[in-house]
């Protein structure tokens, strides 16, 4: 009984009690007939005459009134039971199935929490509502369920909506988790469009269940375009909101530091940036720092962050042991948890090796540099190695964080190639010139018209023409990490620094794109320039590193910090901060000669995922020049990196040893923006020709071709109002209500 009613009413369980209620006016009528007062009456003649005259009219009026009251009760019952009129049931295509393709947005912003539920939970409830159709009209509709994180792989494809499927679906929905990723909804829409294009049926509906953040629509024209195409293909486009308001949100947008210069017991400067995505000022924002899972006692506090602004705080961290260390910075809980923590994994060595090549015969150029970098390695974190030019051919350069070439007259070709390979792969190189430099060699072999390791075409050695009467410093610096020491109160140090000679650039040379002058001499000649070669950084000083041409090395406060900064800066190219975003595949690339294909991945949730990495097929094309010998590699992309945190990759060497590599994955900054797109804005994006249905949060009237349902609901309401008005009018006419004059009396 209920089953048959369920196809006609949203609340079929109310129909039978409601039908019984319809008898209420009749029962009340009879009760009133039985409950009367008695009056002994003399003038019965006139009363009977009146009754005789009005009997028929009274009977009709009473019956009409009773009928109106029965109809009023029936109308109320219908209003509560919510009758449905499905045009499909009357259509020629009623034997064909209706198809629902549902795309759930499972991007990180759907984790937005309101009360005890998230936008993603609301989305799952929407799916349950749609699937509820199966219970009422089994096997008349199909459901295809897509996740925005996996558009090509539907969770369910054209499943008949019936009880059996509902049970399976419920199990599946319970297992679903919202991702932490930034997702492109247009890809999901496109997948849905293609699926619907292949589905024959009377009605095809695409439900996009999402929080509809403003950036989803403003920065993604393809989304509106895909939906428009669907609409033009006669697909009903139904956009269902899962959150009704924009919540305030704080997110850590970056956690960085000079990790390439990290070394045991050397303070490492880290910085964390917090952005206020809300519309109110955030005050006393407390950041908690965890190192290797241990909470640091000190809590960093940002006093105030204005709406839409971000603030950066810096703090020093010191590591007592070599090896990988994980740093986590966390904010207090807010509606969106994904961006409340940021992770950084740092591989801390004992020291950072630096190779110094001195071209002078007496190593005089390297004296001060070696002293600056490596006098106390446990404090600076650098361990410089001094050697000759010919060692460049012999030494494996990869182990050095950076290489300093001082007053080198010329380099053998294989040394040049080794250096080029080293820098192209990310190594840092610093040039210091000097009296022995052969400009012709540099121009021909190293500059190579701007394609080589050296940034400029050289002229010759020049005097700076020191003028004792001129108090201005001999050189000036730009804002650059290397010259940080001069940025604040270090300008005074420049006044003591003198330069007598330098190597001038050729007259016809001007810094091309990619070459930046970071320090100039008093006469505007470049003192230092920076450019990139491959992945590596190259910084070139046109003065000596010794004291032959300048007194700079003799001023420790000006020389030592700059060399340390330079070594750090150069090293960053060698070991750039590896910032990964959740969802980004973890590419495993192993030298087959050194490592075994069996690896293990330890995601942040504590599980262990064993993996056998496949052998990469050797490329058939010629390897690029300088790329070295082609190696046989095991290569695999591990895609299940949805969880923010540190992923450990444990690899086994052929010699049975193990190495652990750690990768920090953080949530996408884009998903932190919780501002909602308004309904009008979405309609504007879709265009005036697209009549998409946009459902507000909590409104489920649309479920089951529900626009029709709503219409009949409105009709019932209107008819009920008319019935009630008629009943009142009739009751007044029958004098069941006192007339105004009588009431007043």
């Amino acid at each position, binding site marked *: 009984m209920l089953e048959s009613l369920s196809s006609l009413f949203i609340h079929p369980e109310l129909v039978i009690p409601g039908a019984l209620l319809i008898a209420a006016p009749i029962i009340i009528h009879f009760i009133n007939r039985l*409950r009367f007062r008695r009056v002994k*009456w003399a003038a019965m003649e006139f*009363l009977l005459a009146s009754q005789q005259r009005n009997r028929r009219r009274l009977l009709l009026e009473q019956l009409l009134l009773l009928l109106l009251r029965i109809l009023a009760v029936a109308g109320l019952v219908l209003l509560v039971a919510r009758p449905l009129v499905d045009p499909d049931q009357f259509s020629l295509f009623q034997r064909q199935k209706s198809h629902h393709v549902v795309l759930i947005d499972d991007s990180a912003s759907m984790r937005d929490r309101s009360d005890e539920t998230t936008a993603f939970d609301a989305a799952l409830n929407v799916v349950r509502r749609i699937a509820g159709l199966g219970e009422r009209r089994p096997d008349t509709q199909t459901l295809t369920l897509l996740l925005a994180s996996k558009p090509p792989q539907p969770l369910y494809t054209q499943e008949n909506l019936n009880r059996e499927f509902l049970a399976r679906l419920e199990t599946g929905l319970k297992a679903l988790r919202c991702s932490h990723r930034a997702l492109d909804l247009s890809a999901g829409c496109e997948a849905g469009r293609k699926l619907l294009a292949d589905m024959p049926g009377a009605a095809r509906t695409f439900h996009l269940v999402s929080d509809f953040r403003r950036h989803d629509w403003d920065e993604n024209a393809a989304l509106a375009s895909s939906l428009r195409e669907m609409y033009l293909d006669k697909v009903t486009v139904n956009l269902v909101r899962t959150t009704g308001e924009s919540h305030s949100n704080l997110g850590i947008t970056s956690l960085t530091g000079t990790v390439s210069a990290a070394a045991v017991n050397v303070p490492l400067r880290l910085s964390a940036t917090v952005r206020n995505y809300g519309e109110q000022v955030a005050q006393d924002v407390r950041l908690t720092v965890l190192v290797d899972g241990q909470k640091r006692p000190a809590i960093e506090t940002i006093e105030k962050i204005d709406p839409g602004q971000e603030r950066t705080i810096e703090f020093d961290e010191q590591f007592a042991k070599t090896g990988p260390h994980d740093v986590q910075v966390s904010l207090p809980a807010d509606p969106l948890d994904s961006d409340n923590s940021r992770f950084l994994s740092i591989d801390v060595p004992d020291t950072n090796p630096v190779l110094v090549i001195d071209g002078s015969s007496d190593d005089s150029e390297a004296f001060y540099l070696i002293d600056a970098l490596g006098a106390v390695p446990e404090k600076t974190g650098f361990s410089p190695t001094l050697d000759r030019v010919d060692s460049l051919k012999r030494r494996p350069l990869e182990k050095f964080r950076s290489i300093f070439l001082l007053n080198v007259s010329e380099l053998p070709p294989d040394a040049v190639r080794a250096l080029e390979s080293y820098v192209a792969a990310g190594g840092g190189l610093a040039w210091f010139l000097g009296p022995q430099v052969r400009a012709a060699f540099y121009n021909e072999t190293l500059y190579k018209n701007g394609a080589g390791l050296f940034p400029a075409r050289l002229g010759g050695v020049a005097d700076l023409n020191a003028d004792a009467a001129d108090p201005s410093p001999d050189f000036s610096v730009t804002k650059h990490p290397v010259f940080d020491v001069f940025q604040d109160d270090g300008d005074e140090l420049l006044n003591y620094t003198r330069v007598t000679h330098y190597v001038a650039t050729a007259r016809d040379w001007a810094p091309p794109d990619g070459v930046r002058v970071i320090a100039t001499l008093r006469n505007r000649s470049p003192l230092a320039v920076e450019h990139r070669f491959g992945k590596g950084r190259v910084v070139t000083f046109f003065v000596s590193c010794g004291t032959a041409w300048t007194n700079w090395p003799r001023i420790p406060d000006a020389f030592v910090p700059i060399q340390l900064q330079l070594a750090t800066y150069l090293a960053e190219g060698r070991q750039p901060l590896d910032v990964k975003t959740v969802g980004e595949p973890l590419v495993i690339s192993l030298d087959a000669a050194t490592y075994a294909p069996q690896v293990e991945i330890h995601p942040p949730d504590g599980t262990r995922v064993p993996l056998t990495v496949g052998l990469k097929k050797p490329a058939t094309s010629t390897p690029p020049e300088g790329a070295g010998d082609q190696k046989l590699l095991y290569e695999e992309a591990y895609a299940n990196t949805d969880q923010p945190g540190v992923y450990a990759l444990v690899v086994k060497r052929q010699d049975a040893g193990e190495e652990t590599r750690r990768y920090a994955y953080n949530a996408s900054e884009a998903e932190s923006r919780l501002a909602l797109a308004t309904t009008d804005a979405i309609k504007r994006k879709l265009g005036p020709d697209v009549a998409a249905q946009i459902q507000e949060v909590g409104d489920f009237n649309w479920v089951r071709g529900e626009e029709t349902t709503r219409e009949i609901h409105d009709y019932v309401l209107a008819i009920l109002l008319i019935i009630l008005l008629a009943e009142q009018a009739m009751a007044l006419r029958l004098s069941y209500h*006192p007339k105004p004059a009588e009431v007043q009396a």
Partner: protein
Amino acid sequence: MTRDSRRFLQPEAISRISRLELQARNVVEGFLSGLHRSPYFGQSVEFVQHREYVAGDDPRRIDWKAWSKTDKYYIKQYEEDTNLRCTLLVDVSESMQFGSGAAGRGRKTASLNKYEYACAVAASLAYLLLRQQDSVGLVTFDSAVRSVVPGRSKRNHLHSVLAALDAQDPAEKTDLYSILEQVADQQSQRGMIVLISDLFVPRDGLFKGLRLLRHRGHDVLLFQILDDEELDFNYAGTTRFEGLEGAGDLVCDPRALRDGYLAALRAFLDELRRHCSQNTIDFQTIRTSEHLDAVLAHYLNHRVGMGKSGRT
């Protein structure tokens, strides 16, 4: 006069109508003995004419002197100094027991039922008439005459009238024609007949009886006593009306029937008024909620007005 019977004599009513005594004299022929000539023949000192004796005449009234001269029997006729002979007809049927009772709904005081009110009217008139030494008789009736008090003009006759009013126990259905016919037969001399009733009786019999009384030369006064609810019918809510005098029952919503009821009642009253007018019968409808003194004063004033305007 028992204590109970005195309840029909309302001091306010008596006090007010007593002041109207002089006017009342003008209303009633022969109001006081010798005040003016009566159109009726009777025993008196002022000779009018002789009439030949016919069988049945009182032999004591034969003029023997005329016999000695003419050898024929003649009877002397004198102008009679008459008192008013008034007969009060009071309806004591079951329908007169109706009374909506308590004060409220526009009613200033708790009212009497129709029977009580009719008795009060009758007692007041009796008191007035006896005080003027007029003759007052009483007939109470329902379906038949229940009691008869012959007309007397002695003051202590009021006790008999009041006792007869009080002694009734109304229960039967009204049948007015036979009553009026019986009264007409009993009244050998013309006089005043005062009928006090709700008149909820078959109309044909009523009108026929009234015509009979007028035909016999009686002056007929008709006091119709009705309750407020009978005139206004302000009942609400489902009500079972149980007809007095076996008129049947009716369960209805009174509001639905009110207009029809009032129309039927109005038609009845109009017909009654028209009939009375045609037959020169004084007709007065009285609400039981109205003050008796005011009602009687108003009525007697009305009668005075009519007398001055040339009524014989």
